[in-house]
């Protein structure tokens, strides 16, 4: 019924005592509680030096190892400031956390390179950094996205963006197309989970019937995704690629959103996706129309 997070997810919040961390802990708790019995659990938090405190009734620990031992957490979400975030990811991985979701924005690339290298030999998966997180509607929200715009259903969503994802999700929900899981992989130049990783999971997930993919300029992740889709994905995929009007050489907000050295322009990505049989939308909400048409005929 979902990928990455489900009813067995037990969430630890790293940076729980900070402004962002405590605010979003409240939001995540509210979402989990609203799901009642079917919901997963937020089990505690970590802030070095603040062990023994509590936030929203959750215990705060000094380090991740202790927190895992005490709470049985298997997932962590990281809100710590960028300059400490690389260490927070490594600490979670060393403590055996299976899924690490890094919300923190602005982690230097040279800090991330050894982290990503370390994770290559580790059973932990990192989603992000600089991402809105992961949500399985009706079950658990591990992120900063507004929970109420989501609806449980058959569409897997994967995106490099934040609010643009919400725009697409909202359009899907309004069209009556619920989501199996929505994954924000983040807008940084290097990150833990790629489009291809998530596409593979959605292809294998029995309850995902179609996939919405939201890309943007910069890098070749969409081209890689297109190649993977052509060979391995047999479910309908609709995509939107943001930044057709972005000028080359200029960074568009996200650290990774730049057309550089002739690499990463939207038209090349769109052409590759079309070539792979992906339904490419001209506007974000058109993804919902395209998938509604496709799923409608598929069910006839």
């Amino acid at each position, binding site marked *: 019924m979902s990928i990455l997070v489900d009813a067995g997810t037990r969430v630890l919040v790293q940076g729980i005592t900070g402004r962002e961390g405590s605010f979003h802990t409240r939001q995540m708790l509210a979402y989990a509680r609203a799901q009642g019995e079917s919901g997963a659990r937020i089990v505690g938090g970590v802030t070095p030096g603040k062990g023994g405190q509590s936030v929203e009734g959750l215990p705060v620990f000094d380090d991740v190892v202790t927190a895992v031992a005490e709470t049985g957490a298997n997932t962590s979400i990281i809100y710590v400031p960028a300059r400490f975030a690389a260490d927070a990811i490594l600490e979670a991985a060393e403590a055996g956390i299976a899924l690490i979701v890094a919300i923190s924005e602005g982690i*230097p690339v040279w800090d991330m390179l050894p982290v990503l290298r370390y994770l290559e030999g580790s059973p932990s998966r990192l989603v992000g950094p600089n991402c809105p997180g992961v949500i399985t509607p009706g079950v658990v929200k591990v992120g900063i996205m507004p929970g109420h715009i989501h609806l449980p259903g058959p569409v897997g969503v994967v995106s490099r963006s934040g609010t643009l994802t919400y725009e697409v999700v909202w359009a899907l929900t309004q069209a009556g197309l619920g989501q199996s899981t929505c994954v924000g992989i983040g807008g940084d130049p290097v990150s833990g989970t790629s489009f291809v990783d998530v596409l593979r999971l959605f292809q294998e997930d029995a309850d995902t019937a179609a996939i919405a993919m939201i890309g943007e300029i910069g890098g070749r992740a969409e081209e890689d995704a297109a190649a993977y889709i052509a060979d391995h994905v047999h479910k309908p995929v609709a995509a939107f690629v943001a930044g057709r009007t*972005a000028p080359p050489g200029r960074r*568009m907000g996200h650290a990774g959103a730049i057309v550089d050295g002739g690499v990463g322009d939207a038209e090349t990505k769109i052409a590759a996706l079309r070539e792979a049989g992906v339904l490419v939308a001209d506007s974000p909400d058109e993804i919902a129309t395209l998938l509604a048409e496709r799923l409608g005929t598929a069910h006839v």
Partner: protein
Amino acid sequence: MRLHEYQSKALLAAHGIPVPDGEVAATGAEAAAVARRLGGRVAVKAQALMGGRGKAGGIVLADTPEEAEAHAARLLAEGLAGAPVHRVLVERAADIYAELYLGLVLDRRARRMVLMACPDGGIDIEEVARRHPERILRLPVDPAIGLRGYHLARVADHLGLSRRGDVPRGDPPVGERPVDERPEDERPVGDPPVGDPPVAPTDDALAAIARGLYACARANDATLAEINPLVVTAEGPPVGATGRSPLLALDAKMVIDDSALYRHPDLAAGRDPQSESDVEREARLAGLSYVKLDGRVGCMVNGAGLAMATMDVLKLHGGEPANFLDVGGGAREERVAQALRLILSDPAVAAILINIFGGITRCDEVARGVVSALRREARLLEEATPVPVVIRLVGTNEDEGRRILEEAGLATAATLAEGARLAVAAASKRPLAGGGR
């Protein structure tokens, strides 16, 4: 943040990479003084953050201080290909035997820095990568082990600088190059070497440069550090106790990771004030992502991806965005007001489209923030010919949010497409400010 050549060379030199003797100059007279000190033939190089500087006439040779002064004064006065030039680098001209390429570049897909080496230097490496990828050796650097001797031996071998006594596979000396009449894409690359280099280059010198390049990039958080060309000189400048080096970094380019600038205050302070407009600088200092574009519809959006998508949808409906602007989460009054000031500082703006996806923040709160920000920037609401504003707000308490906006006399739209249509129509009705841009 991209560094100028002279800044990049200073960082490389600090890591033991030989660069030509030279100094930066801001006036013709300063350039002449540098040329006089260096003596002999010098290169006068415009410091402009653009590719193809040589082709655009930004690199000129001068045989006397008077010539150097004249070239420098001209470049500083006229700029280069429409871009202003505020400094020139005056360097001792190198006696070039062969031109190579050595670079360290972030490979996003591999999640590694990649050391790239190519015996065809001095030309656009991206062009080589497209046409003759086999000419480029790519070595992804594992951050757990860094660059090791066996990596560097492969690089030396690829560049023809190996200890086996091979001569460079690069081009023959500049003065002896025959004129190739064939179109560029039909010319073979990597002709066999002609003659022996006057000073035999060693793999040791190359290894020191490659290690220095990696150390320099890591120390300065560079996501790109390029020496192009790395030249084999007929007679290198003195280096350390060993006397002479046959290799010299003739041109260099570095890009520093913006996310890491907090730990490089010296580099951040050295940002070329001319590399960004006043508006872009104001936006950066206010923590807003703003990129000036050429259209007439100003855009204010929360979130970078949605901001790009908004621009794209404007274009889809026949409009052109005047800017990219991510106002950030929550769309609070203070930031909205600041964003409006930035957008309106562009006289070409004939309409503004505000697109806010109210996520966790409720739409009525966003609407109140937008209205009071608009009131603060009063000319929007009260001037005789205010710049029309179209607002599209979606999320929790959306109806209440729209009611607040409409009571303030603002145009609202239910969808992004409707917002784009309204903004494009409003912009087309408004005459060009001051008779055009």
